[in-house]
């Protein structure tokens, strides 16, 4: 198992490198000259060619592509993502706190999604085809279909305005988490519990379940065995859900004025703040790689057959 983990981490390195290259190339393909962005942000009234050339020199943009990439990557490895073109602040100081805020929201939501999906999935699988299962799936279908901003508005109106139980925005206390987490959970758990349910169902008719019953094992022991084997699919989905939520909290963060990555990235994109966008894309891509590796490791711990696969 230890060897597997080391191999899995080593295998992630070339992928991370490829991501960094791709991020850099894509940003450089943008038709907008970064020097112009900087000058506009500084409020320079007349942008001359000479001024552009000087700014390019200041930012190091006049150097060859490869040299710029190597400098950028060396800086990134030290978590130095440069300065924002707009505010001049260090990107890391800008992104760091926002990332922490979004990570908090994401992790709390992920835990809530996992609990809700597994519990609902198991209940529905054990009750498959009965009324409870069917009505649960129908309800989940409807709730998932409602766009999250609509649902957010509805819940804010009811819980925050009418009943005045929960704050409408910001992140002051644990109570601020309730509504955003609820909305993220509804939109994801409604999809994921179906995966848990169907993989439980596909395990129910396996021979080992029959032999367990024939050996006189209690149902709860058998259910635990089924769950253990069903969770492999779910583990991959849940682990990949974390970076997906990380990248898609934009709507929820904007509705609840959550000071996170989502709101920051939208602002950066609108003002073409290239260093911030670059760092944002890189962080998200790296988190995909990390969580993918984690999901493989958890799966290898559950399923011994996978350990020799790498």
């Amino acid at each position: 198992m230890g060897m597997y983990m080391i191999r899995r981490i080593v295998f992630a390195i070339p992928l991370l490198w490829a991501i960094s290259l791709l991020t850099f190339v894509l940003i450089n393909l943008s038709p907008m000259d970064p020097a112009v962005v900087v000058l506009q942000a500084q409020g320079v009234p007349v942008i001359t060619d000479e001024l552009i050339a000087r700014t390019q020199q200041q930012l190091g943009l006049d150097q060859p592509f490869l040299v710029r990439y190597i400098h950028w990557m060396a800086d990134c490895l030290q978590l130095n993502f440069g300065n924002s073109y707009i505010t001049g602040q260090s990107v890391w100081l800008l992104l760091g706190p926002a990332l922490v805020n979004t990570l908090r929201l994401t992790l709390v939501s992920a835990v809530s999604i996992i609990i809700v999906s597994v519990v609902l999935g198991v209940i529905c699988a054990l009750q498959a085809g009965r009324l409870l299962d069917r009505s649960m799936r129908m309800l989940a279908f409807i709730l998932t279909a409602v766009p999250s901003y609509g649902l957010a508005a509805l819940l804010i109106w009811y819980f925050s305005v009418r009943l005045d139980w929960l704050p409408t925005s910001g992140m002051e206390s644990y109570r601020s988490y309730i509504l955003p987490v609820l909305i993220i959970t509804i939109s994801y758990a409604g999809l994921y519990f179906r995966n848990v349910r169907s993989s439980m169902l596909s395990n129910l008719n396996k021979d080992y379940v029959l032999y367990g019953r024939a050996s006189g094992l209690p149902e709860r022991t058998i259910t635990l065995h089924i769950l253990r084997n069903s969770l492999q699919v779910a583990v991959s989905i849940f682990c990949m859900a974390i970076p997906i939520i990380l990248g898609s909290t934009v709507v929820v963060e904007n509705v609840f004025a959550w000071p996170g990555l989502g709101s920051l990235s939208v602002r950066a994109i609108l003002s073409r703040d290239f260093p911030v966008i670059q760092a944002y894309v890189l962080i998200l891509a790296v988190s995909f790689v990390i969580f993918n590796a984690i999901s493989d490791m958890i799966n290898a711990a559950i399923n011994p057959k996978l350990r020799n696969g790498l």
Partner: protein
Amino acid sequence: MNILEVDQLNIKDTHTGKVIVDNVSFELRQGRCLAIVGESGSGKSLTCRAIMRLNPSSLHQTGRILFRETDLNALSAREMRNMRGRPIGMIMQNGMSAFDPSCVVGVHFRETLGEHYGWSRSVIDAMMQEAMQSVMLNQPAQLMNRYPHELSGGMLQRMMIALTLVLKPDIIIADEPTTALDTLSQQEVMAQFIHLRRTLGSSMIFISHDLGAVRHIADDVLIMKSGQIIERGETGQLFTAPRHDYTRQLLSARLTLSDHFRQLINEE
């Protein structure tokens, strides 16, 4: 004395309304081995699972299944669970899929024996290791820490036999235990089945379409076709003087095959 009496067992698929096992009645005598022979789809496995009430709920079963005066078909789910494993044990067809693939095989033994006897882990391990050695499994301590995919079908089959040896059930139901194995493992496993019967003296229901194996182990034979019993009798008598056409066909199919095989060998 009969240890098990199946009386008018009927199994119906509630989805399609099709009758799969049609009013089957038979009895298993104390200490005897009854073979149920038939082609795939004849209802032999369903009949045996019906005795343990392990068929899916979409299959509805009626009739009486008397195990020592108790009607198994009338028991509650909890009472039925207590019957499984110890009073009535089962050995599955495919050892490779009979164990949870994500746990080492020892886990199944510990859970099963812990449930029935409440023994500690060390007692279970000692009992299992002794039983595994008696079915010719070497280095049992290491084997218990292996995952099912690391072992062969024949080894897993013998592990199920070893577990049965420790559980000491009154009735053993073996559902085509040699079908999934190669010829060499078949012989090893059959030898262990005979050893199992000798050691425990339990009654056994042996489902198979391998007539050679049936002849070796069974005292009585039932022939099933399309959910009905078409012939029954003592093994020797049934093999020498079959009455039903289908039985004759089964036996001659086997003879033709072995004649053909002999011919091939002689030609070499």
